[in-house]
């Protein structure tokens, strides 16, 4: 049999979870991570990263909108997906997806964004005409009070929503990790650490993404990059990445030291089929290199230009690491037989509906959505300050 070494159970030769299932936890992780960054401002009062607060929220929304698409495309019968909402199976971890997703989208993210942008939406509606006015009026949901008192209520409600949002973000991504971690049949996945590793890697990837988006958009808008802001983000990225890396290495060292019956299979795989994606891409290039770069910045005094370059490179490498980690978990977990006697090969399609191009499209689609979102709801801090002076008036 082509691509098979040793013995695979005959139904195991083809992989059933494709690269789309790699994209799904990656995209979901970016949502959770971006939201956690936003919560740094609101809950943990890290004022330095305030310029990215609204951008982080919109980034989270853009990626959350796309998150279910890879799952839907992967299903044999996507038209039946609503059965998960109507007749969920209460013992299934996956059945919770719909509820966690809807909760996060509607109760947390949309609500928080609406609260935060409510004043801007109302002011834009007032100063616009025609269709634009109608559009923003609809977005305002009929609200037209921009008094100090109403804004204070927004602020307090937003704080509460963010407070609820932090465990929700953890739930959203921890649950994705649990889907893998709870499969006792697969030793590569079965680990109580899996949800924790997923949460920390999600935070790392989301924070790195917002850092990149912030630096890119600021450059495009020909504004000055707020150095205390990016320095602080990079500092948090560095510390959280250390925790993430330690957890992942703990998992790996535990497997090596315990060396149970699956070890021979897993060890072989890591040394062959996953060598490039795990050892080279994920650990050396994606993790150790950015940790080294970010670590050097913490203890030295580089010029802003050098620091900015280091942040861009580090954040991009972090994305490589986390995407590789998702690949190694999802695809790696299917490359060896549950008999531990053989290995198969993943034959990835190029233009199939579960192929490379579709995966790239789905990974980049949120950036397109983000572009539209920032056109509708400009998140730029300088603009917000400019608009704030109009606060305190009520629509006639």
């Amino acid at each position: 049999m082509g691509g098979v070494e040793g013995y695979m159970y005959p139904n195991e030769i083809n992989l059933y979870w494709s690269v789309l299932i790699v994209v799904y936890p990656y995209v979901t992780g970016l949502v959770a991570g971006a939201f956690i960054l936003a919560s740094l401002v609101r809950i943990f009062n890290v004022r330095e990263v305030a310029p990215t607060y609204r951008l982080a929220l919109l980034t989270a929304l853009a990626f959350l909108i796309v998150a279910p698409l890879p799952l839907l495309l992967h299903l044999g019968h996507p038209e039946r997906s609503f059965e998960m909402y109507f007749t969920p199976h209460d013992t299934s971890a996956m059945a919770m997806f719909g509820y966690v997703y809807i909760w996060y989208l509607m109760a947390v993210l949309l609500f928080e964004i609406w609260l935060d942008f409510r004043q801007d939406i109302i002011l834009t509606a007032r100063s616009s005409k025609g269709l634009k006015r109608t559009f923003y009026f609809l977005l305002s949901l009929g609200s037209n009070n921009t008094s100090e008192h109403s804004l204070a209520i927004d602020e307090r409600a937003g704080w509460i929503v963010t407070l609820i949002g932090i465990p929700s973000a953890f739930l959203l991504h921890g649950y994705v990790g649990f889907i893998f971690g709870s499969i006792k049949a697969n030793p590569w996945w079965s680990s109580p650490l899996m949800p924790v590793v997923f949460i920390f890697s999600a935070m790392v990837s989301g924070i790195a993404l917002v850092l990149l988006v912030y630096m890119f958009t600021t450059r495009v808008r020909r504004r000055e990059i707020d150095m205390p802001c990016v320095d602080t983000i990079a500092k948090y990225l560095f510390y959280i990445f250390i925790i993430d890396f330690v957890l992942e290495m703990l998992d790996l060292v535990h497997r090596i030291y315990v060396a149970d019956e699956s070890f021979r299979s897993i060890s072989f795989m890591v040394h062959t089929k996953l060598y490039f994606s795990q050892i080279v891409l994920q650990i050396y290039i994606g993790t150790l290199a950015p940790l080294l770069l970010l670590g050097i910045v913490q203890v030295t005094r580089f010029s802003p230009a050098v620091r900015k370059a280091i942040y861009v490179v580090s954040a991009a490498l972090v994305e490589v690491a986390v995407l590789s980690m998702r690949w190694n978990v999802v695809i790696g977990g299917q490359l060896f037989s549950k008999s531990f006697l053989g290995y198969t090969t993943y034959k990835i399609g190029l233009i199939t509906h579960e192929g490379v191009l579709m995966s790239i499209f789905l990974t980049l689609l949120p950036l397109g959505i983000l572009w539209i979102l920032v056109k509708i709801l400009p998140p730029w801090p300088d603009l917000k300050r400019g608009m704030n002076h109009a606060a305190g008036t009520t629509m006639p």
Partner: protein
Amino acid sequence: MNLNRRQFLVLVPVAAAAWQYVLAGTPQDAPNYQLTEHWWGMLLDITKCIGCGNCVRACQAENDVPDEYFRTWVERYLRTDWNLTTPEVISPDGGKEGFPAAEEVKNGMYFFVPKMCNHCADSPCTQVCPVGATFITPDGVVLIDQTYCLGCAYCVQACPYGCRYIHPTKHVADKCTLCYHRITKGLTTACCENCPTGARQLVDLKNPNDPIHAFLKTHDVHVLKPEMATGAKAFYNGLDGSVR
């Protein structure tokens, strides 16, 4: 026909109930079959299996199993004396057409192991199905409602025995049904029916007269991967420790 409002209000629910009855179809093709009086499993006797592949062919013919996918298959193990835990295993085309001639080994042994869904009492596949399309019947058979399955393949990942696959044209999960359409009519499964040596025996644990009870008392019978705690009901006689 003139209907007044009262007649209409009576007729609508009656018609709805009748339509529901028509849609539901015939409840059971075997009217005397009582679900609660059975608890099905299968005895697979490794000491009797000759690896002829009859069971695989019979299963494919009976259940229209697509090529290169298997509801049941047969493995040939070569376990050598100096390596008791890492056997050499083959199953060319699921053992459907038998096996190539084996080379003589001095210090080792060959044996055949038929595999199939274990119809676990605590099946991981049933647990993980997000919509409950996979379920266990009151008579102990794990089945899939293919009109309801999403095709997410979570159950395929959860099965420790590799018994499930996604049907290439139906795009839903598929696996052994223990020939449920046959056993509920008092027949045995296609694989048991066609096994020339009696290596496969359908067993009903709730039937006090089933020979399985005597067999279990007098033989060393095990299940695959007991550490998975799935409540497997594929009972293996003569199971070597190297079998995965």
